[in-house]
Protein backbone atom coordinates (compact mmCIF):
# COMPACT_ATOMS: atom_id res chain seq x y z
CA UNK A 1 0.00 0.00 0.00
CA UNK A 2 3.03 2.26 0.36
CA UNK A 3 3.09 2.97 -3.34
CA UNK A 4 -0.56 4.03 -3.28
CA UNK A 5 -0.02 6.49 -0.44
CA UNK A 6 3.08 7.80 -2.21
CA UNK A 7 1.16 8.17 -5.48
CA UNK A 8 -1.75 9.99 -3.88
CA UNK A 9 0.67 12.30 -2.06
CA UNK A 10 2.49 13.30 -5.24
CA UNK A 11 1.51 16.54 -6.97
CA UNK A 12 -0.34 14.54 -9.64
CA UNK A 13 -1.96 12.18 -7.12
CA UNK A 14 -3.38 15.08 -5.13
CA UNK A 15 -4.92 16.48 -8.28
CA UNK A 16 -6.49 13.09 -8.95
CA UNK A 17 -8.08 13.18 -5.49
CA UNK A 18 -9.44 16.68 -6.17
CA UNK A 19 -10.66 15.56 -9.56
CA UNK A 20 -12.46 12.38 -8.45
CA UNK A 21 -14.10 13.93 -5.38
CA UNK A 22 -15.04 16.97 -7.47
CA UNK A 23 -16.65 14.89 -10.21
CA UNK A 24 -18.56 12.90 -7.55
CA UNK A 25 -19.85 16.18 -6.13
CA UNK A 26 -20.86 17.22 -9.67
CA UNK A 27 -22.87 14.02 -10.06
CA UNK A 28 -24.57 14.75 -6.73
CA UNK A 29 -25.52 18.24 -7.97
CA UNK A 30 -27.44 16.68 -10.85
CA UNK A 31 -29.50 14.48 -8.48
CA UNK A 32 -29.94 17.31 -5.98
CA UNK A 33 -31.16 19.68 -8.69
CA UNK A 34 -33.61 17.20 -10.22
CA UNK A 35 -34.97 16.34 -6.77
CA UNK A 36 -35.31 19.94 -5.71
CA UNK A 37 -37.18 20.84 -8.89
CA UNK A 38 -40.14 19.17 -7.05
CA UNK A 39 -40.33 22.45 -5.12
CA UNK A 40 -41.93 24.01 -8.19
CA UNK A 41 -44.81 21.46 -8.16
CA UNK A 42 -48.10 23.13 -7.33
CA UNK A 43 -49.09 20.52 -4.71
CA UNK A 44 -48.44 22.20 -1.33
CA UNK A 45 -45.06 20.45 -1.26
CA UNK A 46 -46.29 16.85 -1.36
CA UNK A 47 -43.89 15.71 -4.11
CA UNK A 48 -40.95 17.51 -2.48
CA UNK A 49 -41.70 16.10 0.99
CA UNK A 50 -42.06 12.59 -0.40
CA UNK A 51 -38.71 13.02 -2.15
CA UNK A 52 -37.08 14.34 1.06
CA UNK A 53 -38.41 11.38 3.06
CA UNK A 54 -37.16 8.96 0.41
CA UNK A 55 -33.69 10.54 0.39
CA UNK A 56 -33.35 10.23 4.17
CA UNK A 57 -34.74 6.72 4.59
CA UNK A 58 -33.54 4.70 1.59
CA UNK A 59 -30.57 2.59 2.83
CA UNK A 60 -28.63 2.79 -0.45
CA UNK A 61 -28.92 6.57 -0.50
CA UNK A 62 -27.85 6.67 3.15
CA UNK A 63 -24.61 4.90 2.25
CA UNK A 64 -24.00 7.20 -0.71
CA UNK A 65 -24.78 10.25 1.44
CA UNK A 66 -22.00 9.37 3.91
CA UNK A 67 -19.65 9.00 0.95
CA UNK A 68 -20.84 12.44 -0.14
CA UNK A 69 -20.17 14.10 3.25
CA UNK A 70 -16.69 12.53 3.24
CA UNK A 71 -16.08 13.79 -0.31
CA UNK A 72 -17.12 17.33 0.59
CA UNK A 73 -14.77 17.36 3.58
CA UNK A 74 -11.93 15.71 1.68
CA UNK A 75 -12.30 18.01 -1.34
CA UNK A 76 -12.39 21.09 0.92
CA UNK A 77 -9.51 20.12 3.21
CA UNK A 78 -7.30 18.87 0.39
CA UNK A 79 -8.16 21.94 -1.69
CA UNK A 80 -7.21 24.38 1.07
CA UNK A 81 -4.06 22.38 1.77
CA UNK A 82 -3.11 22.58 -1.92
CA UNK A 83 -3.75 26.34 -2.01
CA UNK A 84 -1.41 26.70 0.98
CA UNK A 85 1.27 24.43 -0.50
CA UNK A 86 1.10 25.99 -3.97
CA UNK A 87 1.37 29.41 -2.37
CA UNK A 88 4.60 28.32 -0.72
CA UNK A 89 6.07 27.44 -4.12
CA UNK A 90 6.35 31.23 -4.72
CA UNK A 91 7.56 32.84 -1.48
CA UNK A 92 8.25 36.25 -3.12
CA UNK A 93 5.29 37.46 -5.18
CA UNK A 94 5.46 39.51 -8.37
CA UNK A 95 5.01 43.27 -7.99
CA UNK A 96 3.13 43.31 -11.32
CA UNK A 97 1.32 40.17 -12.47
CA UNK A 98 -0.95 40.34 -15.49
CA UNK A 99 -2.77 37.06 -14.88
CA UNK A 100 -5.76 37.94 -17.05
CA UNK A 101 -3.49 37.91 -20.10
CA UNK A 102 -2.98 34.16 -19.83
CA UNK A 103 -5.75 32.54 -17.78
CA UNK A 104 -9.39 32.85 -16.73
CA UNK A 105 -10.17 34.58 -13.44
CA UNK A 106 -12.06 31.57 -12.06
CA UNK A 107 -9.12 29.24 -12.65
CA UNK A 108 -6.89 31.47 -10.52
CA UNK A 109 -9.42 31.79 -7.68
CA UNK A 110 -10.68 28.26 -7.11
CA UNK A 111 -9.61 28.43 -3.44
CA UNK A 112 -11.66 31.57 -2.75
CA UNK A 113 -14.67 30.26 -4.71
CA UNK A 114 -14.41 26.91 -2.93
CA UNK A 115 -14.24 28.58 0.49
CA UNK A 116 -17.40 30.57 -0.35
CA UNK A 117 -19.09 27.29 -1.27
CA UNK A 118 -17.90 25.62 1.95
CA UNK A 119 -19.46 28.44 4.00
CA UNK A 120 -22.62 28.12 1.92
CA UNK A 121 -22.76 24.34 2.44
CA UNK A 122 -22.37 24.82 6.22
CA UNK A 123 -25.24 27.36 6.32
CA UNK A 124 -27.37 25.31 3.93
CA UNK A 125 -26.92 22.06 5.86
CA UNK A 126 -27.56 23.64 9.26
CA UNK A 127 -30.72 25.34 7.91
CA UNK A 128 -32.29 22.34 6.24
CA UNK A 129 -30.33 19.09 6.65
CA UNK A 130 -29.75 19.47 10.40
CA UNK A 131 -33.25 20.84 11.00
CA UNK A 132 -34.80 17.97 9.07
CA UNK A 133 -32.77 15.27 10.79
CA UNK A 134 -32.47 16.60 14.34
CA UNK A 135 -34.69 19.69 14.56
CA UNK A 136 -38.38 19.96 15.29
CA UNK A 137 -39.87 19.92 11.81
CA UNK A 138 -43.69 19.51 12.00
CA UNK A 139 -45.48 16.78 10.04
CA UNK A 140 -48.20 17.47 7.54
CA UNK A 141 -51.00 15.15 6.51
CA UNK A 142 -51.88 15.23 2.83
CA UNK A 143 -55.16 13.75 1.67
CA UNK A 144 -55.30 13.31 -2.10
CA UNK A 145 -58.72 12.54 -3.50
CA UNK A 146 -58.49 9.47 -5.70
CA UNK A 147 -61.28 10.79 -7.93
CA UNK A 148 -60.40 14.43 -8.48
CA UNK A 149 -56.74 14.53 -7.43
CA UNK A 150 -57.57 17.44 -5.15
CA UNK A 151 -55.12 17.84 -2.27
CA UNK A 152 -56.14 18.74 1.30
CA UNK A 153 -53.46 19.45 3.91
CA UNK A 154 -53.54 19.29 7.69
CA UNK A 155 -50.71 20.21 10.04
CA UNK A 156 -50.03 17.62 12.70
CA UNK A 157 -49.36 19.36 16.06
CA UNK A 158 -45.70 19.52 17.03
CA UNK A 159 -44.50 17.09 19.66
CA UNK A 160 -46.56 14.25 18.25
CA UNK A 161 -44.26 11.27 17.79
CA UNK A 162 -44.22 9.95 14.28
CA UNK A 163 -41.85 7.72 12.41
CA UNK A 164 -39.42 9.51 10.18
CA UNK A 165 -40.90 7.97 7.07
CA UNK A 166 -43.85 8.28 4.77
CA UNK A 167 -47.13 7.15 6.27
CA UNK A 168 -49.05 6.06 3.27
CA UNK A 169 -52.60 4.67 3.45
CA UNK A 170 -55.68 4.63 1.24
CA UNK A 171 -58.96 5.28 3.05
CA UNK A 172 -62.38 6.73 2.22
CA UNK A 173 -61.48 7.27 -1.42
CA UNK A 174 -58.44 9.29 -0.37
CA UNK A 175 -54.74 8.62 -0.51
CA UNK A 176 -53.38 9.87 2.81
CA UNK A 177 -49.71 10.72 3.36
CA UNK A 178 -48.13 11.91 6.59
CA UNK A 179 -44.64 13.32 6.06
CA UNK A 180 -42.19 15.74 7.69
CA UNK A 181 -42.94 19.10 6.09
CA UNK A 182 -39.56 20.29 4.82
CA UNK A 183 -41.43 22.25 2.13
CA UNK A 184 -42.82 24.55 4.81
CA UNK A 185 -39.32 25.10 6.25
CA UNK A 186 -38.08 26.00 2.77
CA UNK A 187 -40.97 28.31 1.91
CA UNK A 188 -40.76 30.14 5.25
CA UNK A 189 -36.94 30.28 5.26
CA UNK A 190 -36.74 31.87 1.84
CA UNK A 191 -38.94 34.79 2.89
CA UNK A 192 -35.78 36.23 4.53
CA UNK A 193 -33.89 38.36 2.01
CA UNK A 194 -30.40 37.92 3.57
CA UNK A 195 -30.72 34.16 3.12
CA UNK A 196 -31.97 34.54 -0.46
CA UNK A 197 -29.06 36.89 -1.21
CA UNK A 198 -26.56 34.41 0.27
CA UNK A 199 -28.01 31.63 -1.87
CA UNK A 200 -27.94 33.63 -5.09
CA UNK A 201 -24.37 34.86 -4.50
CA UNK A 202 -23.27 31.33 -3.64
CA UNK A 203 -24.69 30.09 -6.93
CA UNK A 204 -22.50 32.65 -8.73
CA UNK A 205 -19.55 31.13 -6.86
CA UNK A 206 -20.73 27.66 -7.88
CA UNK A 207 -21.00 28.76 -11.50
CA UNK A 208 -17.43 30.08 -11.64
CA UNK A 209 -16.08 27.14 -9.57
CA UNK A 210 -17.55 24.63 -12.00
CA UNK A 211 -16.70 26.64 -15.11
CA UNK A 212 -13.08 25.79 -14.37
CA UNK A 213 -13.55 22.75 -12.14
CA UNK A 214 -15.53 20.41 -14.37
CA UNK A 215 -13.24 20.44 -17.41
CA UNK A 216 -10.16 20.74 -15.20
CA UNK A 217 -11.08 17.47 -13.46
CA UNK A 218 -10.79 15.61 -16.77
CA UNK A 219 -7.43 17.22 -17.55
CA UNK A 220 -6.13 16.09 -14.13
CA UNK A 221 -7.13 12.53 -14.98
CA UNK A 222 -5.21 12.81 -18.24
CA UNK A 223 -8.34 13.04 -20.36
CA UNK A 224 -7.65 15.73 -22.95
CA UNK A 225 -8.06 14.94 -26.61
CA UNK A 226 -9.20 17.04 -29.54
CA UNK A 227 -11.94 14.44 -30.20
CA UNK A 228 -13.87 15.03 -26.98
CA UNK A 229 -12.36 17.98 -25.08
CA UNK A 230 -14.78 20.31 -26.84
CA UNK A 231 -17.71 18.28 -25.52
CA UNK A 232 -16.29 18.33 -21.97
CA UNK A 233 -15.91 22.12 -22.11
CA UNK A 234 -19.42 22.47 -23.59
CA UNK A 235 -20.99 20.43 -20.75
CA UNK A 236 -18.88 22.29 -18.18
CA UNK A 237 -20.02 25.66 -19.48
CA UNK A 238 -23.67 25.11 -20.33
CA UNK A 239 -24.79 22.45 -17.89
CA UNK A 240 -22.57 22.85 -14.82
CA UNK A 241 -21.83 26.55 -14.90
CA UNK A 242 -25.11 27.92 -16.29
CA UNK A 243 -28.11 25.54 -16.03
CA UNK A 244 -27.39 24.02 -12.61
CA UNK A 245 -26.58 27.28 -10.75
CA UNK A 246 -29.57 28.99 -12.46
CA UNK A 247 -31.97 26.23 -11.40
CA UNK A 248 -30.70 26.32 -7.82
CA UNK A 249 -30.80 30.14 -7.64
CA UNK A 250 -34.36 30.10 -9.00
CA UNK A 251 -35.60 28.18 -5.92
CA UNK A 252 -34.98 30.80 -3.18
CA UNK A 253 -36.01 33.59 -5.57
CA UNK A 254 -39.28 31.76 -6.39
CA UNK A 255 -40.23 31.45 -2.71
CA UNK A 256 -39.13 35.00 -1.97
CA UNK A 257 -41.38 36.56 -4.59
CA UNK A 258 -44.32 34.10 -4.40
Amino acid at each position, binding site marked *: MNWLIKTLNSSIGQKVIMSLTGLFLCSFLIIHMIGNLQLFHDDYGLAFNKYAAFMTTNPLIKVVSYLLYASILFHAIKGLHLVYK*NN*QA*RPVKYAVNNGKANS*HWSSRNMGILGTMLLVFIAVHMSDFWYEYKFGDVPHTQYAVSLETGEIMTDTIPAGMKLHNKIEDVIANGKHIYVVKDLYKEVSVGFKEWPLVLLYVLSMFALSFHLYHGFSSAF*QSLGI*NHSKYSGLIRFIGLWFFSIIIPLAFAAMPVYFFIS
Partner: protein
Amino acid sequence: MSGNMNITLKVWRQKNTSDKGRFETYQVPGVSPDMSFLEMFDVLNERLVAEGKEVPIAFDHDCREGICGMCSLFINGRPHGPNDGVTTCQLHMRSFKDGDVIVVEPWRAAAFPVIKDLAVDRSSFDRIMSAGGFISVNTGNAQDANNLPIGKEIADEAFEAATCIGCGACVAACKNSSAMLFVGAKVSQFALLPQGQPERKQRALAMVNQMDAEGFGACTNTGACSAECPKEIPLTVIARLNREYLGAEFCGK
Protein backbone atom coordinates in the same frame (compact mmCIF):
# COMPACT_ATOMS: atom_id res chain seq x y z
CA MET B 1 17.14 59.50 -34.75
CA SER B 2 13.47 60.05 -35.31
CA GLY B 3 11.09 57.51 -33.84
CA ASN B 4 13.35 56.79 -30.88
CA MET B 5 11.62 56.35 -27.54
CA ASN B 6 12.21 57.37 -23.96
CA ILE B 7 11.58 54.42 -21.66
CA THR B 8 11.40 54.27 -17.88
CA LEU B 9 12.52 50.93 -16.45
CA LYS B 10 11.72 49.66 -12.99
CA VAL B 11 14.21 46.86 -12.54
CA TRP B 12 14.56 44.37 -9.71
CA ARG B 13 18.04 44.66 -8.19
CA GLN B 14 19.26 42.00 -5.77
CA LYS B 15 22.95 41.60 -4.80
CA ASN B 16 22.80 37.87 -4.16
CA THR B 17 20.46 35.05 -3.13
CA SER B 18 20.25 36.15 0.49
CA ASP B 19 19.75 39.88 -0.27
CA LYS B 20 16.17 41.14 0.13
CA GLY B 21 16.21 43.02 -3.16
CA ARG B 22 14.36 46.16 -4.31
CA PHE B 23 13.21 47.98 -7.42
CA GLU B 24 15.44 50.66 -9.00
CA THR B 25 14.16 53.13 -11.59
CA TYR B 26 16.25 53.91 -14.69
CA GLN B 27 15.57 56.38 -17.48
CA VAL B 28 16.63 55.02 -20.87
CA PRO B 29 16.43 57.77 -23.51
CA GLY B 30 16.77 57.31 -27.27
CA VAL B 31 15.69 53.68 -27.46
CA SER B 32 15.42 52.52 -31.07
CA PRO B 33 12.19 50.62 -31.84
CA ASP B 34 14.34 48.09 -33.72
CA MET B 35 16.33 47.13 -30.63
CA SER B 36 15.52 43.90 -28.89
CA PHE B 37 14.56 44.12 -25.24
CA LEU B 38 17.95 42.71 -24.27
CA GLU B 39 19.80 45.23 -26.47
CA MET B 40 18.08 47.98 -24.53
CA PHE B 41 19.50 46.40 -21.38
CA ASP B 42 22.95 46.32 -23.05
CA VAL B 43 22.70 50.06 -23.73
CA LEU B 44 21.66 50.72 -20.13
CA ASN B 45 24.45 48.49 -18.77
CA GLU B 46 27.08 50.21 -20.90
CA ARG B 47 25.98 53.50 -19.44
CA LEU B 48 26.07 52.12 -15.88
CA VAL B 49 29.61 50.84 -16.48
CA ALA B 50 30.70 54.18 -17.97
CA GLU B 51 29.20 56.12 -15.07
CA GLY B 52 30.95 53.79 -12.64
CA LYS B 53 28.37 54.43 -9.92
CA GLU B 54 26.48 51.14 -10.08
CA VAL B 55 27.32 47.60 -11.08
CA PRO B 56 25.54 46.60 -14.32
CA ILE B 57 22.26 44.69 -14.18
CA ALA B 58 22.69 40.91 -14.32
CA PHE B 59 20.35 39.10 -16.70
CA ASP B 60 20.52 35.76 -18.49
CA HIS B 61 21.01 35.54 -22.27
CA ASP B 62 22.89 33.47 -24.78
CA CYS B 63 21.91 32.82 -28.41
CA ARG B 64 19.61 35.82 -28.76
CA GLU B 65 17.72 34.10 -31.53
CA GLY B 66 14.97 32.52 -29.45
CA ILE B 67 16.21 28.97 -29.33
CA CYS B 68 18.55 28.45 -26.37
CA GLY B 69 16.09 29.04 -23.54
CA MET B 70 18.54 31.15 -21.56
CA CYS B 71 16.79 34.52 -21.51
CA SER B 72 13.96 35.12 -19.09
CA LEU B 73 12.50 38.34 -17.54
CA PHE B 74 8.99 38.93 -16.23
CA ILE B 75 8.01 42.06 -18.14
CA ASN B 76 4.97 44.11 -17.08
CA GLY B 77 3.44 41.06 -15.40
CA ARG B 78 4.10 38.54 -18.18
CA PRO B 79 7.01 36.16 -18.82
CA HIS B 80 8.96 37.15 -21.97
CA GLY B 81 6.82 40.31 -22.24
CA PRO B 82 3.57 41.20 -23.96
CA ASN B 83 3.90 39.21 -27.22
CA ASP B 84 2.84 35.59 -27.64
CA GLY B 85 5.20 32.87 -28.83
CA VAL B 86 8.49 34.73 -28.46
CA THR B 87 11.34 34.84 -25.98
CA THR B 88 12.59 38.10 -24.47
CA CYS B 89 15.52 38.25 -26.92
CA GLN B 90 13.01 38.23 -29.80
CA LEU B 91 10.87 40.93 -28.19
CA HIS B 92 11.50 44.25 -29.89
CA MET B 93 11.07 47.71 -28.45
CA ARG B 94 8.50 48.50 -31.16
CA SER B 95 6.11 46.51 -28.94
CA PHE B 96 6.27 49.43 -26.52
CA LYS B 97 5.41 53.13 -26.78
CA ASP B 98 7.40 56.28 -26.12
CA GLY B 99 7.13 57.18 -22.43
CA ASP B 100 6.20 53.67 -21.29
CA VAL B 101 7.07 52.53 -17.77
CA ILE B 102 8.23 48.92 -17.91
CA VAL B 103 8.48 46.79 -14.76
CA VAL B 104 11.08 44.00 -15.06
CA GLU B 105 11.28 41.20 -12.49
CA PRO B 106 13.08 37.87 -12.33
CA TRP B 107 11.18 34.55 -12.55
CA ARG B 108 9.75 34.05 -9.09
CA ALA B 109 9.59 30.53 -7.66
CA ALA B 110 11.01 28.75 -4.65
CA ALA B 111 12.63 26.31 -7.09
CA PHE B 112 14.24 29.19 -9.06
CA PRO B 113 16.21 31.17 -6.47
CA VAL B 114 17.53 34.55 -7.62
CA ILE B 115 21.31 34.46 -8.16
CA LYS B 116 21.64 38.17 -8.84
CA ASP B 117 19.27 40.88 -10.09
CA LEU B 118 17.25 39.26 -12.90
CA ALA B 119 19.24 36.03 -13.18
CA VAL B 120 17.72 32.98 -11.51
CA ASP B 121 19.10 29.51 -10.86
CA ARG B 122 17.20 27.06 -13.08
CA SER B 123 19.35 24.04 -12.23
CA SER B 124 16.22 22.43 -10.73
CA PHE B 125 15.22 21.81 -14.39
CA ASP B 126 18.62 20.17 -15.01
CA ARG B 127 18.10 17.87 -12.02
CA ILE B 128 14.66 16.87 -13.33
CA MET B 129 16.29 16.05 -16.70
CA SER B 130 19.05 14.06 -14.96
CA ALA B 131 16.39 12.06 -13.14
CA GLY B 132 14.82 10.72 -16.33
CA GLY B 133 14.91 13.07 -19.31
CA PHE B 134 17.15 10.86 -21.43
CA ILE B 135 17.26 7.63 -23.41
CA SER B 136 19.93 4.98 -23.12
CA VAL B 137 21.61 4.13 -26.45
CA ASN B 138 24.13 1.33 -26.85
CA THR B 139 27.34 2.28 -28.56
CA GLY B 140 28.20 0.85 -31.97
CA ASN B 141 26.97 1.59 -35.43
CA ALA B 142 23.79 3.54 -35.74
CA GLN B 143 21.06 1.30 -37.11
CA ASP B 144 19.29 2.08 -40.34
CA ALA B 145 16.75 4.83 -39.74
CA ASN B 146 14.09 2.98 -41.72
CA ASN B 147 14.15 0.17 -39.15
CA LEU B 148 12.09 2.37 -36.87
CA PRO B 149 9.04 3.55 -38.79
CA ILE B 150 7.32 6.44 -37.05
CA GLY B 151 4.04 7.87 -38.33
CA LYS B 152 4.09 11.49 -39.44
CA GLU B 153 1.42 12.53 -36.93
CA ILE B 154 3.30 10.94 -34.02
CA ALA B 155 6.57 12.44 -35.18
CA ASP B 156 4.94 15.88 -35.38
CA GLU B 157 3.43 15.54 -31.91
CA ALA B 158 6.75 14.44 -30.43
CA PHE B 159 8.50 17.31 -32.20
CA GLU B 160 5.96 19.80 -30.89
CA ALA B 161 6.78 18.66 -27.35
CA ALA B 162 10.49 18.60 -28.08
CA THR B 163 10.49 22.29 -29.03
CA CYS B 164 10.57 23.06 -25.29
CA ILE B 165 13.70 25.13 -24.65
CA GLY B 166 13.46 24.84 -20.86
CA CYS B 167 13.33 28.60 -20.29
CA GLY B 168 11.00 28.31 -17.30
CA ALA B 169 8.33 30.76 -18.52
CA CYS B 170 5.71 28.11 -17.63
CA VAL B 171 6.85 28.11 -14.01
CA ALA B 172 7.05 31.91 -13.98
CA ALA B 173 3.53 32.32 -15.37
CA CYS B 174 1.88 29.65 -13.21
CA LYS B 175 0.23 30.93 -10.08
CA ASN B 176 1.49 27.77 -8.34
CA SER B 177 5.00 27.90 -9.85
CA SER B 178 4.29 24.46 -11.26
CA ALA B 179 6.73 22.85 -13.69
CA MET B 180 4.18 20.48 -15.21
CA LEU B 181 4.31 21.94 -18.74
CA PHE B 182 8.10 21.54 -18.82
CA VAL B 183 8.03 18.00 -17.39
CA GLY B 184 5.00 17.16 -19.55
CA ALA B 185 6.85 18.26 -22.70
CA LYS B 186 9.97 16.27 -21.82
CA VAL B 187 8.01 13.13 -20.87
CA SER B 188 5.85 13.46 -24.01
CA GLN B 189 8.69 13.74 -26.51
CA PHE B 190 10.12 10.41 -25.29
CA ALA B 191 6.85 8.60 -24.56
CA LEU B 192 5.68 9.16 -28.15
CA LEU B 193 8.78 7.75 -29.83
CA PRO B 194 10.08 4.14 -29.94
CA GLN B 195 13.47 5.16 -28.54
CA GLY B 196 11.77 6.33 -25.36
CA GLN B 197 9.93 3.08 -24.62
CA PRO B 198 12.49 1.08 -22.56
CA GLU B 199 12.62 3.67 -19.76
CA ARG B 200 9.12 5.02 -20.28
CA LYS B 201 7.55 4.12 -16.91
CA GLN B 202 10.66 4.74 -14.85
CA ARG B 203 11.12 8.11 -16.55
CA ALA B 204 7.63 9.41 -15.67
CA LEU B 205 8.03 8.38 -12.02
CA ALA B 206 11.56 9.72 -11.60
CA MET B 207 10.88 13.07 -13.27
CA VAL B 208 7.67 13.71 -11.31
CA ASN B 209 9.34 12.71 -8.03
CA GLN B 210 12.24 15.08 -8.74
CA MET B 211 9.82 17.84 -9.77
CA ASP B 212 8.02 17.49 -6.42
CA ALA B 213 11.30 17.33 -4.49
CA GLU B 214 12.47 20.61 -6.07
CA GLY B 215 9.54 22.50 -4.53
CA PHE B 216 7.48 23.28 -7.64
CA GLY B 217 3.75 23.65 -6.99
CA ALA B 218 0.97 21.39 -8.25
CA CYS B 219 -0.86 22.06 -11.52
CA THR B 220 -4.35 23.58 -11.25
CA ASN B 221 -4.96 23.66 -15.01
CA THR B 222 -5.18 27.44 -15.35
CA GLY B 223 -3.49 27.17 -18.74
CA ALA B 224 -1.25 30.18 -18.05
CA CYS B 225 1.89 28.11 -18.82
CA SER B 226 0.80 27.18 -22.31
CA ALA B 227 -0.48 30.70 -23.04
CA GLU B 228 2.92 32.19 -22.10
CA CYS B 229 5.14 29.44 -23.52
CA PRO B 230 7.42 30.96 -26.20
CA LYS B 231 7.21 27.62 -28.04
CA GLU B 232 3.40 27.40 -27.55
CA ILE B 233 3.51 23.88 -26.14
CA PRO B 234 -0.09 22.70 -25.62
CA LEU B 235 -1.74 21.61 -22.37
CA THR B 236 -2.21 18.13 -23.82
CA VAL B 237 1.38 17.36 -22.75
CA ILE B 238 0.30 17.80 -19.11
CA ALA B 239 -2.64 15.45 -19.64
CA ARG B 240 -0.18 12.95 -21.13
CA LEU B 241 2.18 13.40 -18.17
CA ASN B 242 -0.73 12.64 -15.82
CA ARG B 243 -1.54 9.49 -17.82
CA GLU B 244 2.10 8.41 -17.97
CA TYR B 245 2.63 8.94 -14.26
CA LEU B 246 -0.62 7.30 -13.13
CA GLY B 247 -0.10 4.44 -15.60
CA ALA B 248 3.41 3.89 -14.30
CA GLU B 249 2.30 3.96 -10.67
CA PHE B 250 -0.72 1.72 -11.12
CA CYS B 251 0.53 -0.64 -13.83
CA GLY B 252 4.32 -0.49 -13.51
CA LYS B 253 6.53 -2.48 -11.21
